[in-house]
């Protein structure tokens, strides 16, 4: 007696579970049971599970009977003539979708050649085992699993052509690649997803060699000539939004050039790009602090007579302006209204981004690296046939990571570029490496991809041959321009008087607890004190009650508000400590400072 569960709920039991399974299977394939139903017999629990709920991950397989796949050449002919569709095959029970549970009870052959009588199913194509982005990695089966994973993750961060209607979209943090190319080395998935309509990389000539140590630690060296010809060139878009909000009491925001007597007025130059309607002119080149949309808001708290005299004096400035370190060109200006009927201004900002030192690039195999040096075209090494590589990739990243596909793609790309055709790099079904190499030989190159190269600066021939070929390279969205940050002095927090945190707020770079420990370990006591001087204050302390006294700036005199007539002495402490003393006092704890002369 086997229990039967429908969607996890007990519905009854059967004597012959395998007979039930067989009949369910037959009925699903005959079309009397819906194709979305999956079932599976767990012999350890002696239970049949039938599932027809949504949310199960399923994948298609070709049904095999007696070692022969049900999908025949006739079906394929009809498919190519458009007389038959995929859903027809599913409906006819030739292709089945299995969920994770049902997959446990089947025996799947990888290729038709492997089929035996025991097999119940055949893979449609090996690529169906992988996800979308993973399938975009060429020669996947030659890579270590971990690098396939990172390789597919990296592709999601690549600059590309994400949507054809990008000029009218107001997406946040958009990156576009100016001259995207279709990869020479493709996989089946590139065709399925129509990758040629939205490519996200470029085919480059790559030489596996070091260059004066500028490509150590995964860095790459880029040819300046290639950048000038458009390699990795892109645009960065960022929208800025302002809305005319309505407040209680009939008060509204106003989008216009603010009056000079408005509270918080910037300076006249900051408003110089605004037109009469308070909105910036398209195509104006703006930088830090420039106002994009001029706006004033009513005062936050209405009091007394102000309510009736809403002159510009009481209004406050609330313009949208460029943040610290930002620059760019105004791209699109859209004036519209939002769902509540308020006036809404959206300004899209564009910034041209050419590759610079520190920008991130990657191949499709998780071999990511940062630009270490941009070399003039003339100084780049060149091959005997006069080819100058676009990128110099360090060989030290290969052995530990075992990205063999990276090396194979290089040769495959070279063959593709020389013979003028696309190379198939689909998982388990790619063009064999041996065939690619012999083709490379017929094209007049060494079959191992090595070439004699010359030093671009001296013209001398290198003592070794260099591995040169073509690869598909991606520029990733992590760019120095968005991340560079340093500070010597700048804004502080109101409460603690310590530097603000984060690049957007021009914050300080924190010397943390463990970093502090290293100063102590070195006995660098004075240096440590100096490093933590950012919130240093000098306060008068009452010598009789031990509380922090008050300094009267008019009388130039310190006095204790408790003892009034006592001595005070100036003490240098961190403001954070003064703050915690105040917090103690608010908790009715009396923190008394007993002063002793230090010397």
């Amino acid at each position, binding site marked *: 007696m086997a229990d039967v569960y429908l969607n996890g709920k007990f519905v009854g039991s059967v004597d012959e579970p395998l007979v039930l399974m067989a009949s369910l299977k037959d009925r699903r394939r005959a079309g009397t049971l819906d194709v979305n139903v999956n079932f599976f017999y767990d012999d350890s629990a002696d239970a049949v599970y039938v599932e027809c709920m949504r949310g199960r991950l399923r994948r298609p397989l070709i049904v095999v009977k007696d070692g022969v796949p049900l999908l025949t050449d006739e079906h394929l002919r009809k498919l190519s003539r458009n007389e038959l569709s995929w859903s027809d095959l599913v409906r006819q029970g030739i292709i089945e979708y299995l969920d994770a549970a049902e997959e446990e009870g089947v025996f799947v052959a990888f290729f038709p050649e492997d089929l035996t009588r025991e097999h119940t199913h055949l893979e449609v194509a090996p690529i169906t085992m992988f996800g979308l982005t993973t399938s975009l990695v060429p020669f996947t089966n030659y890579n270590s699993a971990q690098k396939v994973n990172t390789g597919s993750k990296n592709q999601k961060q690549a600059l590309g052509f994400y949507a054809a209607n990008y000029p009218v979209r107001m997406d946040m943090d958009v990156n576009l690649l100016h001259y995207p190319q279709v990869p020479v080395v493709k996989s089946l998935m590139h065709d399925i997803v129509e990758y040629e309509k939205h490519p996200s990389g470029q085919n480059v000539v790559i030489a596996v060699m070091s260059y004066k140590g500028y490509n150590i630690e995964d860095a790459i060296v880029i040819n300046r000539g290639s950048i000038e010809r458009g390699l990795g060139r892109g645009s960065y878009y960022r929208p800025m939004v302002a809305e005319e909000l309505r407040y209680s009491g009939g008060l509204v925001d106003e989008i216009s050039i603010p009056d000079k007597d408005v509270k918080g007025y910037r300076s006249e130059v900051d408003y110089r790009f605004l037109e009469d309607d308070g909105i910036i002119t398209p195509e104006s080149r703006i930088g830090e602090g420039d106002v994009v949309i001029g706006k004033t808001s009513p005062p936050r708290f209405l009091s007394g007579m102000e309510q009736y005299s809403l002159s510009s004096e009481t209004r406050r400035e609330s313009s949208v302006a460029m943040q610290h370190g930002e620059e760019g060109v105004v791209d699109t200006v859209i004036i519209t209204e939002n769902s509540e009927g308020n006036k809404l201004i959206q300004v899209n900002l564009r910034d041209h981004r050419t590759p610079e030192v520190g920008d991130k690039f990657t191949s499709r195999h998780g071999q990511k690296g940062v630009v270490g040096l941009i070399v003039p075209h003339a100084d780049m090494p060149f091959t005997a046939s006069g080819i100058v590589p676009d990128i110099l990739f360090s060989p030290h990243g290969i052995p530990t990571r075992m990205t063999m596909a990276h090396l194979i793609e290089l040769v495959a790309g070279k063959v593709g570029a020389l013979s003028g055709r696309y190379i198939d790099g689909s998982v388990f079904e790619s063009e064999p490496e041996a065939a690619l190499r012999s083709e490379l030989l017929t094209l007049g190159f060494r079959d191992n991809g090595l070439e004699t190269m010359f030093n671009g600066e001296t013209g001398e021939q290198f003592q070794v041959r260099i591995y040169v070929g073509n690869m598909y390279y991606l520029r990733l969205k992590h760019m120095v321009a968005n991340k560079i940050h340093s500070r010597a002095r700048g804004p502080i927090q109101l409460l603690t008087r310590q530097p603000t945190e984060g690049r957007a707020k021009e914050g300080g770079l924190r010397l943390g607890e463990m970093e*502090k420990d290293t100063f*102590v*370990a070195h*006995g660098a*006591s*004075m240096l440590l*004190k100096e490093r*933590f001087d950012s919130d240093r204050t000098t306060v008068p302390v009452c010598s009789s009650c031990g509380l922090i006294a008050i300094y009267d700036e008019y009388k130039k005199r310190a006095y204790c508000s408790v003892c009034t007539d006592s001595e005070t002495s100036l003490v240098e402490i961190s403001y954070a400590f003064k703050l915690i003393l105040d917090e103690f006092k608010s908790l009715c*704890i009396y923190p008394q400072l*007993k002063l002793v002369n230090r010397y």
Partner: protein
Amino acid sequence: MADALKEYEALLPSGLVSRMVEELGDKASDSKVKSVFKRLVDEYERMKVHAGESVGIVAAESIGEPGTQMTLNTFHFAGVAEMNITMGLPRIIEVLDGRKTLATPMMDIYLKRPYSQGQDIKKIALSVKETRLKDVAAEISLNLADARIDVAVDDARLSELGMTKQGLVSVLKKEAKGLSVELRKELLCFKAKNKEENVNEVFKLKEKLKEVVIKGIKGVYQVLPVKRGSEFVIITAGTNLKKVLSLPFVDDTRTVSNDIFEIEAVLGIEAARQAVINEVFKVIENQGLNVDIRHLMLVADTMSAAGRIQGITRYGVVKNKASVLAKASFETPIKYFIEASLYGEVDKLTSVVENVMLNQPVPVGTGMLKLVAKHDEGK
């Protein structure tokens, strides 16, 4: 030679002097002895830690940094179930936290000759391992009518342990408290002495009876004889140092437990201090890392300074800190602030953390000393 040594003897530890004398031999000339010892004193002085060196933080960093590279948290013995040893970072944390209950308590039992050469090693090992009644029982049944517990004994298991039924009965008479034992035919019959007829009570007694130790040492639930170098050692899971040390075949000079508190109770605080050093060093060595043992000594000294082992936690050594602010900066600040305000504690600001908080020079290294110069007003 003795004359030449005189001026250096006071400057060096006696052990070092005698070792060097041994090394030099009798034939060394006075001038050579002098030059060697002069050099030795220089080297010895050079190796000393300077005043104001932040030994604590250096020790913390020296142990903490390799800790980030540690892998493999347990170590297993092939073929023996329930024999795995906590190693790596979890073990270090366990020792330094001063945990009372260990994840894997264990002992290394060294043996006296000839047993250390492998004689009767299996028998000895088995005699140490605790055996409970349930391990030799083929069947335990409740005779509810007579409120009696009947135990059928597995004879094969019993003879494997080298015991007879009579012997078992006499052991049980001692160990099974509150029960009377009787051998009836093949069955061991137990009855409660104080006439409890209640079924529940009998059932509870049965459960207790199962766990009665009939042979071996209580707490040692697994044994494994292994060859270490040229001798046999018994590794155990579970500890009972006191009982094991009293066994006649055990080499009580080398047998150790990995339970620091057990060592403290049996052998005293100095042994416990050494155990802390050994246990932590064992892990570090096992991981192939290199940490100077003096860092561990400092930690062990701190942990045993109170005369009992204290962990480096807010309940242990941190509690003993003089400074309120330093204690509060570790864990549970509110607790320490409330305590300080209730008792009116005074913080003398003599240590590092407090001074960092106040932005004062920390009293280590260059901040240790203060130099006051008299300023001459241009006279």
